[in-house]
C-alpha cells in the first residue's frame, strides 16, 4: 500500500491505485472526465494533469494514468499544470453550447463543476460550433449530442461495462457521435446508466424531462424494491410525485449501476389508482375510525374464537421492522406466527437462504471477483438484473460462467448453458455424485480460486437451495465455495429470518379452506396474485369473516378487503430491508405521501384549497399502523434496539444509516430446517413452467406505467425439436390447457431451452397473469388452434 504526498498531505492508497485515486481520497479536486472508479482510466480527456515532483516518472502527468508509488511527491498547484487544466477546460468548451440555464443536467453537471474546478471561465474561441442531429433512443433516454465533450464514458458504460450491443461511437476527429446504428429504443436492460455516467447533459432521463430542476428535488438514499439484491438507489421527487431514480453507490453491491426496471419503474408510487384512503367494505372512512374498528373487531374475534383463528401475512415488500411488528401482533393476540410470503415455496426458499451461515454467503462484489460461477436455476436478467452485470464483470476479468437452467437464458457475457429441466436439476443436486455434469463441475469448483454458486430460489425452492448448500460444502476443501441465493423480493431474506422460528408445516390455504381461520391481516402483500395458486387463494379469501389489508398498491385484494388501511411506500417512510446475501440496508423517506400536485392541479397551477393537510396524505407507514395496534411508542431507532435484543444476529441494525454500505447479519446459528418432500414430477410428459418475465412480473414493475413499453407479448415457448415432433411451426397459434385455464397463445421457438417443457412468462394485465412463477411445472396439453376447434 503506497504512501505518497500530494500538496503536502500524506495519503495511503490501495495497491494499484493511481495518483488520481490518492487525490480523490484526500478530497483534493483534480478535475477529470474519462476516469471513473467503476470504469477505470483510459487517459483520453487529459483533464487530470498534475505535477509529479518526486517519483519514477517526473513532470506534468495525467494523474489517472500514474500508479501511486511510495514516497512520491505530487503537486496540483504548479503553474504549468494549473494552466494546462484550464486549457483543457477551454478546449472541451469550444463546442459546448451555452445552454446551461435550460439544460436538463443543470445543477448536477459534472462538466460545469469541473470546468470551474479547472479554472476555465471565459471562452476565447469565437468560431462556429459543430452541431449534431440527435437520435430517438426510445422512451427512457433522451439525447442532446451538441452537449457532448467526447469523454467516451457513455460507450464504456453501455458497451464495455453493461455489455449492450446497440450503442457505440461513430465518426472521428471533432465529429465523433455516440449513439445507435439507427434510431430506436436502446435495447440494454441497463440503458439508464448512461444518464448517471454522462458527465454532462447529453443523456438525460426522458421520463423526467422538464419537470424539476435538480436543486428543487427532494432526495434521500434508498434501496431498490424491485428484486432481492438490494441495490442502492437515490430517488428524487417533488410536489408529492416521485419523479426519478438514480443509482446510489455501494461498492459491495451494485457499485454504481442499476437496472432499467429500478430506474424507470418507480412511478407506481404515483399511480392514479393508488389507494390513499382508509376503507371499510369499500367505503371511504376516516383513518382513525378504520384503525379503531379493526382493533375492536380483532379483539372481539379473539375473545370469541381464540387467537388460533387469526392469521397474519407479512411480505418481502414490507420493511423488516413491519414484518417484525407483525410477529409481535401475533404474539399479542395469541395467533400463530405470521407467514412472510404468500407463496409457500418462496417462503421456504427464503427461510433456507436465511439459514445459510453468513460467512458462506457471497456479495455482488465477491461475485465480480470470482473466477468460476455456477448459476443453478436462475435467470439473472429476469430475477435479479444487476447480478447479470456482476457476472459480466467477472467474465471480463477471465471468469468462467456456467449455467444450469431450463430457460433460454441470455446474459451480457459469454457463458456455458446446460438447459436442464427443473426436475432433473433438483434430482441431480440430490445425488450430484451420480450426475456426470455436476461431478465434473464439482471438480472444477474445487480447483478454482474464488468459486461462487448462484442458486435461484424460485426454481430450486428451499429444498433445492439446501441441496445446493450441501453441494457447495462438498466442493470446498481448502477454500470456501460461496453461495449467492437469489430470492423473490427486497426483504425476502428478512422474512426468512423471522419465519425460521415458525412452524413450516402449516399451510395457509388449507387452513382457510377448512374454515379454521376467521380473520386475516395482510401487510403489503396480495395473496390473490402472489400465491402459487391464485384462483384457489381468491376463493379461499372470500370465506373469511374479516380480511384486513394494509397496502399501497391498487390490488384486487385491496378492493375486496373488509378493512383497508393505506400504507406509505418505501419512498415515504424509513425502514430496513435485508437483501439476498443477508445485508441489512436502511432507507430514508424521500417524500411525504399525498396526491401529486400535477394531479390535484390538473397539470396547471397548484390548487387553491385551504385544508390543513394535503389531499391524499392519509397513509401511515405499516410500522406506524402496527405500532398503534401494539401500543408501542418506540421511534425507529428504539424499535431497532428492541429488535437487536431479541435477534442478536441483527446486532448491527442500530448502526445502519441510509446511504451507507449496509451491514451483514451475523450468523443466526439456526439449524437447517428439515426439508419437506417436494413432488418432483416425472420426466417425459409435457409440462409447462411459469417463469418470471423481465418486466412486469414483480408487483412494482407491474404497476409502473413507464415500463409498459418493455412488457412482452404473451406467448408460450417450446424447443424447436419438441415442436417438430408435434408438427408445430414457429409463431403458430396454439391452445394451452392447464389446471388454471385454457389459453390461446402464439408458440415461440427457443432453441436454447430445455426439452420436454413449455415455458410461459408470467405477464401482468394479460391472461397469463394467473400463472405465478416460483412453483414446479404443471401438467398441460397443447393443441393447434385449428385442431382444438
Amino acid at each position, binding site marked *: 500500500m503506497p504512501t505518497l504526498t500530494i500538496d503536502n498531505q500524506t495519503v495511503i492508497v490501495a495497491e494499484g491505485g493511481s495518483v488520481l485515486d490518492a487525490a480523490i481520497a484526500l478530497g483534493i479536486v483534480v478535475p477529470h472526465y474519462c476516469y471513473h472508479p467503476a470504469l477505470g482510466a483510459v487517459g483520453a480527456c487529459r483533464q487530470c494533469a498534475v505535477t509529479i515532483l518526486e517519483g519514477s516518472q517526473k513532470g506534468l502527468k495525467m494523474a489517472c494514468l500514474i500508479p501511486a508509488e511510495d514516497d512520491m511527491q505530487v503537486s496540483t498547484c504548479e503553474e504549468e499544470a494549473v494552466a494546462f487544466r484550464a486549457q483543457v477546460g477551454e478546449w472541451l468548451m469550444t463546442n459546448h453550447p451555452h445552454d446551461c440555464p435550460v439544460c436538463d443536467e443543470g445543477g448536477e453537471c459534472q462538466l460545469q463543476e469541473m470546468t470551474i474546478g479547472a479554472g476555465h471561465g471565459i471562452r476565447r474561441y469565437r468560431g462556429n460550433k459543430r452541431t449534431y442531429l440527435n437520435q430517438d433512443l426510445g422512451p427512457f433516454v433522451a439525447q442532446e449530442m451538441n452537449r457532448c465533450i467526447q469523454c467516451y464514458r457513455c460507450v464504456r458504460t453501455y458497451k464495455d461495462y453493461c455489455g449492450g*450491443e*446497440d*450503442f*457505440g*461511437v*461513430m*465518426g*472521428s476527429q471533432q465529429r465523433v*457521435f455516440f449513439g*445507435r*446504428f*439507427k434510431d430506436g429504443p436502446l435495447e440494454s436492460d441497463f440503458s439508464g446508466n448512461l444518464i448517471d455516467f454522462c458527465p454532462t447533459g447529453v443523456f438525460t432521463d426522458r421520463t423526467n424531462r422538464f419537470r424539476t430542476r435538480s436543486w428543487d428535488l427532494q432526495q434521500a438514499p434508498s434501496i431498490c424494491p424491485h428484486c432481492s439484491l438490494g441495490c442502492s438507489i437515490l430517488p428524487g421527487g417533488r410536489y408529492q410525485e416521485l419523479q426519478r431514480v438514480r443509482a446510489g453507490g455501494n461498492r459491495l453491491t451494485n457499485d454504481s449501476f442499476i437496472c432499467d426496471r429500478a430506474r424507470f419503474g418507480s412511478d407506481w408510487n404515483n399511480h392514479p389508482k393508488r389507494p390513499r384512503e382508509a376503507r371499510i367494505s369499500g367505503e371511504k372512512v376516516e383513518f382513525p375510525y378504520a384503525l379503531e374498528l379493526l382493533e375492536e373487531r380483532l379483539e372481539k374475534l379473539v375473545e370469541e374464537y381464540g387467537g388460533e383463528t387469526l392469521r397474519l401475512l407479512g411480505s418481502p415488500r414490507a420493511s423488516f421492522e413491519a414484518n417484525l411488528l407483525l410477529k409481535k401482533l401475533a404474539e399479542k393476540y395469541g395467533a400463530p406466527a405470521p407467514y412472510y410470503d404468500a407463496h409457500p415455496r418462496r417462503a421456504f426458499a427464503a427461510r433456507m437462504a436465511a439459514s445459510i451461515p453468513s460467512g458462506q454467503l457471497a456479495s455482488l462484489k465477491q461475485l465480480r471477483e470470482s473466477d468460476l460461477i455456477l448459476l443453478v436455476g436462475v435467470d439473472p436478467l429476469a430475477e435479479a438484473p444487476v447480478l447479470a452485470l456482476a457476472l459480466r464483470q467477472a467474465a471480463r476479468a477471465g471468469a468462467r460462467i456456467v449455467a444450469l437452467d431450463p430457460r433460454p437464458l441470455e446474459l451480457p457475457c459469454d457463458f456455458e448453458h446446460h438447459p436442464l429441466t427443473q426436475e432433473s436439476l433438483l434430482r441431480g443436486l440430490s445425488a450430484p455424485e451420480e450426475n456426470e455434469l455436476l461431478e465434473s463441475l464439482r471438480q472444477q469448483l474445487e480447483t478454482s480460486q474464488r468459486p461462487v454458486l448462484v442458486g435461484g430460489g424460485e426454481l430450486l425452492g428451499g429444498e433445492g437451495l439446501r441441496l445446493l448448500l450441501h453441494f457447495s460444502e462438498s466442493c470446498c476443501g481448502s477454500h470456501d465455495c460461496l453461495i449467492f441465493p437469489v430470492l423473490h423480493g427486497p426483504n425476502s431474506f428478512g422474512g426468512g429470518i423471522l419465519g425460521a422460528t415458525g412452524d413450516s408445516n402449516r399451510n395457509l390455504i388449507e387452513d382457510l379452506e377448512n374454515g379454521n381461520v376467521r380473520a386475516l391481516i395482510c401487510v403489503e402483500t396480495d395473496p390473490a396474485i402472489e400465491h402459487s395458486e391464485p384462483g384457489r387463494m381468491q376463493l379461499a379469501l372470500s370465506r373469511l369473516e374479516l380480511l384486513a389489508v394494509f397496502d399501497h398498491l391498487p390490488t384486487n385484494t385491496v378492493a375486496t378487503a373488509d378493512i383497508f388501511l393505506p400504507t406509505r411506500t418505501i419512498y415515504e417512510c424509513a425502514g430496513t430491508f435485508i437483501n439476498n446475501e443477508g445485508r441489512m440496508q436502511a432507507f430514508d423517506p424521500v417524500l411525504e405521501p399525498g396526491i401529486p400536485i400535477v394531479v390535484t392541479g390538473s397539470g396547471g397551477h397548484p390548487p387553491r384549497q385551504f385544508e390543513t393537510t394535503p389531499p391524499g396524505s392519509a397513509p401511515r407507514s405499516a410500522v406506524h399502523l402496527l405500532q398503534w395496534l401494539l401500543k408501542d411508542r418506540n421511534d425507529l431507532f428504539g424499535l431497532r434496539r428492541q429488535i437487536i435484543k431479541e435477534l442478536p444476529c441483527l446486532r448491527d441494525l442500530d448502526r445502519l444509516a441510509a446511504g451507507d454500505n449496509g451491514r451483514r447479519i451475523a450468523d443466526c446459528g439456526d439449524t437447517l430446517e428439515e426439508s419437506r418432500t417436494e413432488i418432483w414430477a416425472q420426466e417425459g410428459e409435457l409440462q409447462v413452467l411459469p417463469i418470471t418475465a423481465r418486466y412486469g412480473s414483480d408487483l412494482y414493475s407491474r404497476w409502473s406505467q413507464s415500463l409498459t413499453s418493455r412488457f412482452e407479448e404473451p406467448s408460450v415457448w417450446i424447443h424447436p425439436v419438441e415442436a417438430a415432433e408435434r408438427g408445430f411451426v414457429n409463431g403458430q397459434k396454439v391452445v394451452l390447457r392447464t389446471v388454471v385455464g385454457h389459453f390461446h397463445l402464439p408458440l415461440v421457438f427457443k432453441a436454447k431451452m430445455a426439452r420436454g417443457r413449455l415455458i410461459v412468462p408470467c405477464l401482468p394485465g394479460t391472461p397469463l397473469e394467473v400463472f405465478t412463477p416460483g412453483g414446479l411445472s404443471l401438467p398441460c396439453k397443447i393443441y393447434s388452434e385449428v385442431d382444438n376447434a
Partner: protein
Amino acid sequence: MKKLLLKKEIDAFRKKAQKLEHPREMVIDLLRAIQDHFGWVPDAGVELAADILGVPPIEVEEVATFYDKIYRQKVGRYPIHICDSICCWIRGGEEIAAHLQQQLGIKLGQTTSDGLFTLLPTCCLGGCGRAPSIMVGKRFYGHLTCDGLDQIIAQLREEAVG
C-alpha cells in the same frame, strides 16, 4: 436493383469468417468489397457485413464511419478525391479544386445531377512528387493542369457512356 455483393463473394466471405480465429479482421475487406461492387456502403451493407462477421451492426458502423474512403453516403460513379495537403496545395491544388467545381457545376461534397461525379477533398494521396494530384475512385492522376483535368473528365464521361 444492384446487389450489395455477389452471392459467390458473400459465400466466400462467410466461409473465411468461419475459418478465421478473429473474423472481425475482415471488416475493412468486406466494406471495401461492398463498396467496389455497389459503389458505396448503404445501411444494408453495414448490416450484411455485420451478419457475415457475426457481430451487431453498430460494431461495423463504428469502424465504417471512421475511415474516409468508406462512403457511407451515396457518391457518384466517379468519386473524385482532390488532394488538399501541402505538396499539392502549394503547386496549384486550389486551382484544380476550383476548376473542377466550376466545370462540374457542383461544390465540394456534392454529386453531379447525372450521378457521375462527386467531389471530395482529401488529405495527401502519396503523390507528392506528382503534385497537384487527384484520385478518381482508386485511379491516381498526377501533374495535373486544368486542361489535363478537362481531358480526364471527358474521358470518364465517355467511359460511362460506353
